[in-house]
């Protein structure tokens, strides 16, 4: 047999393409997907059909126009759609910078799939929930050590909800001191997640946005100009989306504290900092960690998730309740008290994710967590070094090392070839890789944001680098290849002109049928 030559630099990939119909098109009258439990005959003979008691006018007269589909067809349809979804398990998912895509340990997924988690009711007697409450409490202890803060709540169910909870605490704190009216401004930075500004607005705050200095650091002189007796809080990520760590962070938090404001830390992504530096020493009063980022819980297509919210002692009375306490013999759920912001999410948050992250922390220990950070930072700087060698790519701002991620730019390539970062997004699909640009506004022109985490080997990083190199080569030699991509993904270029036109957009199948019926 001849030797099979495998010397291609980029993967000869093609994603599954099933050309599935919309589920309504699978409708076949009379088929059914599952049998629903029925009332026993004796119940029926006692209470009748049950529905005759529905008051006049409140009974549904026509059944919902759902499709009727046999079970195997439903399963097959969704399995096919799953194959048209590029989970992080399947690719070198370093292209979703800021989101800390890392390996999802299978043992953790296995452990949450038990009735001992899945079939617990959140209000069941605490005597029957000691195991899960212990998990909450022990992860709280670990988070306290990682952050230096004094108490964690796992109720917020995303980074955005944690930010909302923190903005709510800022408001409740100043209200409790009679300064709620006066302090109406929250200061943030442009390279922080949009939810920082957006959630503060929900809580009634005016937003002041700091722009970076020439090296990409938040500008301390700008901070001094905007800080005042109106300052309620300062929220920032560090490092920011650029991966640039602000070494003067303690000066920032000191200035805000002197003005009477609260400092809260967006640590959605803390992957480069575990065991290296903490929120407390940097002067923060609150922080949150996304368990679905740094702490290896999966992203699940966008939730459910957890934004673990930590505070210093003085802010514990403002936490959403209940919180988990331990008296030395058993675990209990305790209400927080009158100063509490109340609740931000029903019940106790996403318990299964809390368990996943507890398991992850236990599987690493202190040294392992530090290795996570060190390796993530090493991987990032290796990637950074290599990407700067690619024609047309750059990394604006300071030239030194970055921490766990970098926001890069294709500005030069776009100017020289017309190929944009959005074109690259689509072309990367052809190599089985995901690639993300940036949140808006694009402060860095033609941006892309990469975060390699600790999960990927050098060979994995090289595969990603080679794909970007290939696209750069194509852009300079035959840009149409990139502009017309993808050609080996699930679908071809989408004609998205309808998405912003109320007359044409179709958000549901019924709406599509109405808006596309050929006129007589």
């Amino acid at each position, binding site marked *: 047999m001849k030797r099979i030559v495998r010397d291609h630099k980029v993967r000869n990939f093609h994603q599954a393409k099933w050309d599935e119909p919309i589920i309504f098109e699978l409708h076949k009258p009379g088929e059914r997907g599952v049998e629903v439990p029925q009332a026993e005959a004796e119940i029926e003979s006692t209470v009748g059909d049950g529905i005759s008691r529905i008051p006049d006018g409140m009974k549904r007269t026509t059944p919902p126009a759902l499709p009727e589909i046999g079970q195997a067809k*439903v399963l097959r349809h969704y399995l096919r759609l799953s194959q048209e979804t590029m989970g992080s398990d399947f690719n070198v998912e370093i292209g979703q910078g800021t989101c800390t895509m890392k390996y999802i340990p299978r043992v953790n997924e296995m452990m949450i799939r038990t009735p001992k988690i899945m079939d617990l009711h959140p209000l069941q007697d605490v005597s029957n929930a000691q195991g899960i409450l212990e998990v909450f409490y022990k992860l709280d202890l670990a988070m306290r050590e990682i952050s230096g803060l004094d108490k964690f709540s796992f109720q917020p169910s995303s980074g955005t909800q944690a930010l909302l909870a923190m903005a709510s605490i800022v408001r409740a704190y100043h209200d409790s001191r009679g300064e709620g009216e006066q302090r109406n401004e929250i200061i943030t930075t442009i390279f922080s997640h949009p939810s920082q500004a957006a959630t503060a607005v929900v809580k009634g705050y005016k937003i002041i946005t700091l722009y970076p200095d020439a090296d990409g650091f938040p500008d301390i002189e700008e901070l001094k100009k905007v800080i005042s007796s109106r300052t309620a809080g300062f929220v920032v990520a560090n490092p920011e989306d650029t991966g640039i760590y602000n070494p003067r962070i303690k000066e920032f938090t000191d200035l805000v504290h002197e003005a009477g404001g609260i400092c809260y830390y967006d640590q959605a992504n803390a992957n480069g900092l575990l065991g290296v530096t903490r929120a407390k020493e940097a002067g923060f009063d609150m922080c949150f960690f996304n368990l679905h980022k740094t702490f290896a819980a999966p992203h699940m297509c966008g939730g459910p998730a957890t934004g673990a919210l930590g505070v210093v002692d003085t802010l514990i009375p403002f936490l959403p309740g209940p919180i988990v306490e331990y008296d030395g013999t058993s675990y209990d759920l305790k209400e927080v008290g009158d100063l509490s912001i109340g609740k931000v999410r029903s019940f106790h948050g996403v318990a299964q994710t809390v368990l996943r992250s507890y398991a992850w922390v236990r599987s690493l220990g202190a040294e392992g967590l530090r290795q996570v950070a060190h390796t993530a930072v090493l991987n990032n700087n290796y990637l950074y070094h290599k990407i700067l060698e690619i024609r047309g790519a750059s990394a604006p701002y300071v030239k030194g090392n970055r921490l766990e991620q970098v926001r890069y730019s294709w500005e030069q390539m776009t100017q020289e070839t017309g190929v944009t970062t959005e074109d690259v997004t689509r072309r990367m699909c052809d190599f089985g890789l995901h690639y993300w640009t940036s949140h808006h506004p694009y402060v860095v022109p033609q941006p892309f944001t990469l975060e390699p985490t600790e999960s990927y080997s050098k060979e994995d990083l090289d595969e990603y680098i080679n794909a970007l190199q290939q696209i750069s080569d194509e852009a300079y030699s035959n840009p149409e290849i990139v502009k017309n991509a993808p050609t080996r993904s699930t679908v071809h270029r989408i004609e998205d002109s309808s998405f912003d036109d109320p007359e044409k957009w179709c958000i549901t199948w019924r709406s599509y049928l109405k808006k596309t019926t050929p006129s007589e």
Partner: protein
Amino acid sequence: METRRKASVHPYIPNMIPEVQRQMLDEIGVERIEDLYDIIPDAIKMDRLMDMPPALSEFELKREIDKLLQKNKSANETINFLGAGCWQHFIPAVCDEINQRSEFVTAYAGEPYEDKGRFQSLFEYQSLVAELVDMDVVNVPTFDWAQAASTSLRMASRITGRTEVLLPATIDRDKLMIIANYITPQLSYQLVDFNDPSGELDLEDLKSKVNANTAAVYFENPTFLGTIESQGQQIADIAHAAGALCVVGVDPSSLGVLKPPSQYGADIICGDLQPLGMHMNYGGGQAGFIATRDEEKFVMEYPSRLFGIAPTIVEGEYGFGDVAYDRTSFAHRETGKESVGTQTALWGITAGVYLALLGPYGMQELGQTIMQKSQYAAELLAAIDGVEIRLQSTFFKEFVVDFNGTGKTVREIHRQLLADGIQGGKDLSEDFPELGQCALYCVTEVHAKEELETLAAAIQRACVVKEEVESV
């Protein structure tokens, strides 16, 4: 015996191999990994190892966690009558199969190309829920019903330019806390009374409270206390006459038998998807949805992502993408509508699978079974001396059991039930002190007739036990 971890490469961190690290450091031109942290001032660097329990291998971890979880007793090991916003239902196996798929579990923010399946599944979920509620627009789900209601109210405020909302006094107190926190400080609320014993909204009180600043009248069907609100159209008419929007919260498992609120005047519908195929997960199964008509003034006020269908450059191919993305905080930070981010997409996909499996008649049968079984349970309990069903309107799935006539507290009775392996319903005595010693019991399609009879017998016994204790 404690097993010591050998100095080695952690299975989750391939680049811990010293030779590889050396090679990469040389490539960067840096001596040690620590040097990459030079920018962090020593004053705020940790100078010690964190204080943590020792690392566990996969085998040790599983053994430890399994042992720990044994301390939990699942709802299958008791007979559970708790609902109150999180309900025990039959979960078709296909729901779990799909939402445990590695592709869906580990996907996140992919493009409509490599993640076409995620976009299509969520578009289909939107479309299926749209049929259930008879509306043309449904969002990619938010955190839970409380968040969906909170956002619905803020949407109503933006649409009407008004800042007060009316909420039913039957509302779940936890949900009220969430709404109150979310709408403060721009919006305020008032509670509208309900009639005891009918459970219906007090229309006179509503009329007295609705005013020129009312953005929305919000009510629920069924109410938190389980009763079916039969005055839906009248409430909507009162809201509309005052220039307010009508926002209705629903339990979607009722919509095979109950009229969807869009058919009695609702402008915005919200609710929780958890009953549609999600395990309770100690509260981690919640997911909120919002539905409206397909009118620009509504669509442009959603903060959520809305996935739409579109053609591609190839004839016959379905494509998907974000509709009106410019609304969102992703696009415009603080000037977007509220905020968007990670919410509960996987539960949206699962709810779609559930609705596709049950179909129109499955949803009808589900609603009917729930009504029959819960009515049967209520009749059994009402037959016990001193026990009554407090609210008289027809209920769906949950009902208020009144223990005032027994001379015992809910707490005392439930402690006895627990000893019999029964988890009683939610104790309402703190949240609704005006009801005295009442509890909210939930009965769904999962409860067998024998279990309902076991409950009735146990409650009867619980009363007797207490009397004996007192007579000693």
